[in-house]
C-alpha cells in the first residue's frame, strides 16, 4: 500500500517524514472522496438526465460536475501546500481539458502543451551547426504527434466537445464568471428579432464579426500549436504568448507561493496577466470568449462533434419549431440553433438547450431512436 502511494504521488520514502506532506496526502484523499461522493449523489438522484428536471437544476448539476472534475484532476495537494508541481508517472497521461501541467495540483498533462512539447523535441543526431551563421539548426524528432493525436481521437470519438461543456477547468472558470450578474451581451439570432431590435444594422455587423472571429481558434491551432513550434522555433508558442489557463492555474498560484519564481517575473508575465485580465472582464459580459475565439483544444474537439458516439439529435416529431418555438435557440449561450444543426462545431454540449426545450425534443446521447420509436435526426435540417 505504502509503495503504491509513493508511486502515485511520485515521492520517495523520506518525504513521509514531513508532516506537511502527510497532511497533504490525507487532504488529497479527502478531496477525491468528496468529488466522487458528489458525483455519485448526482448520479443516484438522476441529475444527469438533462431533460428531466428543467434548466435551473441542470445548470446547478453542470457547475457541480465541473467543480468535481476540477477537484479530481487537480487534487495533488502536496503541490498546493508547498508551491511545487506533481512529478510522478501519472503525468504520462493527458487530461481532456485545458489544464496547465504547471498547476500545483495537476495530476496529468495538458494536451495542447504536450502537443507543442512533442513538436519542439529535436533529434540531436540529425541537428547540425550552420557554419556560415554559427546557429544550431534543430531537426524535429517527431513530424507527427501520434500519441497526443491518438489520445485526442479517442476522447473525441467518444464525446466530442462534451469535454468543453462539462470537463474543462478553464471552461468552468468562464462559466462562473458569466454567472456574475451584470448586463450580458447576447445578440438575437433570428431575422424577426434582429429586425425588431433597436439597432438592426449594428446587430448584423456584430453577428458577422462574431461569425468570422470564431475561425480564429483554428488559426491559433494551425499557426501557434503546430506550424511555429514545429518549423520555426522550438518554443511552446501558444503556451508562452497566449494561454491564460497557464497563467491562472499555474503562474499565479506558483508565483504567490514561491518567492524565487515571483522574483523572475518580467514582461512576459505582464503580457500574460493582461491577456488573462482582459478575458476575465470579457467573460463577465460574453459567454466563454476563450472557447469561442481562441482555444485550439476546442478547435480540435469541434471536428469530432458530428461523428462522435455521444451526439445531439432532434426528435422532429415532437419539436414545435414549425409552430414558431425557438426556446432552445434563445437558450443556447454559444449562439447555436440546435434544431437547425444539432451537432454544430460550435456546440460545447452544455445541455442548456435540451434542458430548456418545453417539448423535450432535443436528445443528447447515444441512440438514434426515441423510446416511442421516433427517428432522432443528428444531421443539419434542410
Amino acid at each position, binding site marked *: 500500500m505504502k509503495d503504491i502511494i509513493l508511486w502515485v504521488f*511520485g515521492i520517495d520514502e523520506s518525504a513521509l517524514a514531513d508532516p506537511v506532506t502527510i497532511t497533504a496526502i490525507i487532504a488529497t484523499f479527502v478531496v477525491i472522496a468528496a468529488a466522487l461522493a458528489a458525483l455519485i449523489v448526482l448520479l443516484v438522484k438522476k441529475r444527469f438526465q438533462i431533460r428531466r428536471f428543467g434548466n435551473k437544476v441542470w445548470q446547478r448539476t453542470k457547475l457541480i460536475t465541473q467543480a468535481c472534475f476540477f477537484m479530481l484532476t487537480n487534487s495533488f495537494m502536496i503541490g498546493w501546500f508547498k508551491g511545487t*508541481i*506533481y*512529478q*510522478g*508517472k501519472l*503525468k*504520462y497521461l493527458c487530461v481532456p481539458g485545458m489544464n496547465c*501541467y*504547471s498547476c500545483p495540483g495537476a495530476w*496529468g*498533462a*495538458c494536451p495542447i*502543451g*504536450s502537443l507543442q*512539447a*512533442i513538436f519542439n523535441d529535436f533529434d540531436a543526431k540529425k541537428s547540425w551547426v550552420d557554419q556560415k551563421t554559427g546557429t544550431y539548426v534543430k531537426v524535429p*524528432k*517527431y513530424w507527427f*504527434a*501520434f*500519441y*497526443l*493525436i*491518438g*489520445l*485526442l*481521437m*479517442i476522447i*473525441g*470519438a*467518444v464525446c466530442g466537445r462534451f469535454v468543453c461543456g462539462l470537463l474543462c477547468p478553464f471552461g468552468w472558470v468562464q462559466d462562473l464568471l458569466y454567472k456574475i450578474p451584470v448586463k450580458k451581451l447576447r445578440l438575437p439570432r433570428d431575422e424577426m428579432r434582429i429586425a425588431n431590435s433597436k439597432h438592426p444594422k449594428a446587430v448584423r455587423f456584430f453577428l458577422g464579426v462574431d461569425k468570422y472571429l470564431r475561425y480564429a481558434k483554428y488559426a491559433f491551432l494551425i499557426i501557434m500549436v503546430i506550424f511555429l513550434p514545429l518549423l520555426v522555433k522550438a518554443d*511552446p508558442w501558444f*503556451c*508562452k504568448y497566449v*494561454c491564460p489557463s*497557464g*497563467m491562472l492555474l*499555474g*503562474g499565479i498560484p*506558483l*508565483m504567490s507561493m514561491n518567492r524565487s*519564481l515571483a522574483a*523572475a*517575473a*518580467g514582461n*512576459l*508575465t505582464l*503580457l*500574460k496577466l493582461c491577456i488573462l485580465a482582459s478575458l476575465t472582464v470579457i467573460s463577465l459580459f460574453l459567454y466563454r470568449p476563450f472557447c469561442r475565439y481562441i482555444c485550439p483544444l476546442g478547435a480540435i474537439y469541434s471536428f*469530432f462533434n458530428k*461523428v*462522435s*458516439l455521444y*451526439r445531439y439529435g432532434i426528435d422532429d416529431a415532437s419539436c414545435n419549431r414549425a409552430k414558431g418555438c425557438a426556446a432552445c435557440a434563445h437558450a443556447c449561450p454559444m449562439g447555436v440553433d440546435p434544431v437547425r444543426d444539432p451537432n454544430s462545431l460550435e456546440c460545447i454540449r452544455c445541455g442548456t438547450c435540451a434542458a430548456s426545450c418545453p417539448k423535450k425534443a432535443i436528445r443528447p446521447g*447515444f441512440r*438514434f431512436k426515441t423510446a416511442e420509436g421516433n*427517428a*432522432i435526426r*443528428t444531421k443539419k435540417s434542410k
Partner: protein
Amino acid sequence: MGDNMKKESKASRYIIPAAIFACGVTFVIIGIADKEVLTVLRKAAAICMECIGLG
C-alpha cells in the same frame, strides 16, 4: 426508405466513432513505441516557465 434511414443512422452513429476510436488506439500505441510519452513526461514533470509567464 425507413429501413435505409435506419441503416444510414446506424452506420454513422456507431461505425464511424468506432473506427476513429480504433485509429486513436493505434496511434497511441505507435506513439508509446516511439517514446513520445517520454517527451510528454519530461515536459509535464517540470515547471513550464513559458506556460506560467516566466519563459
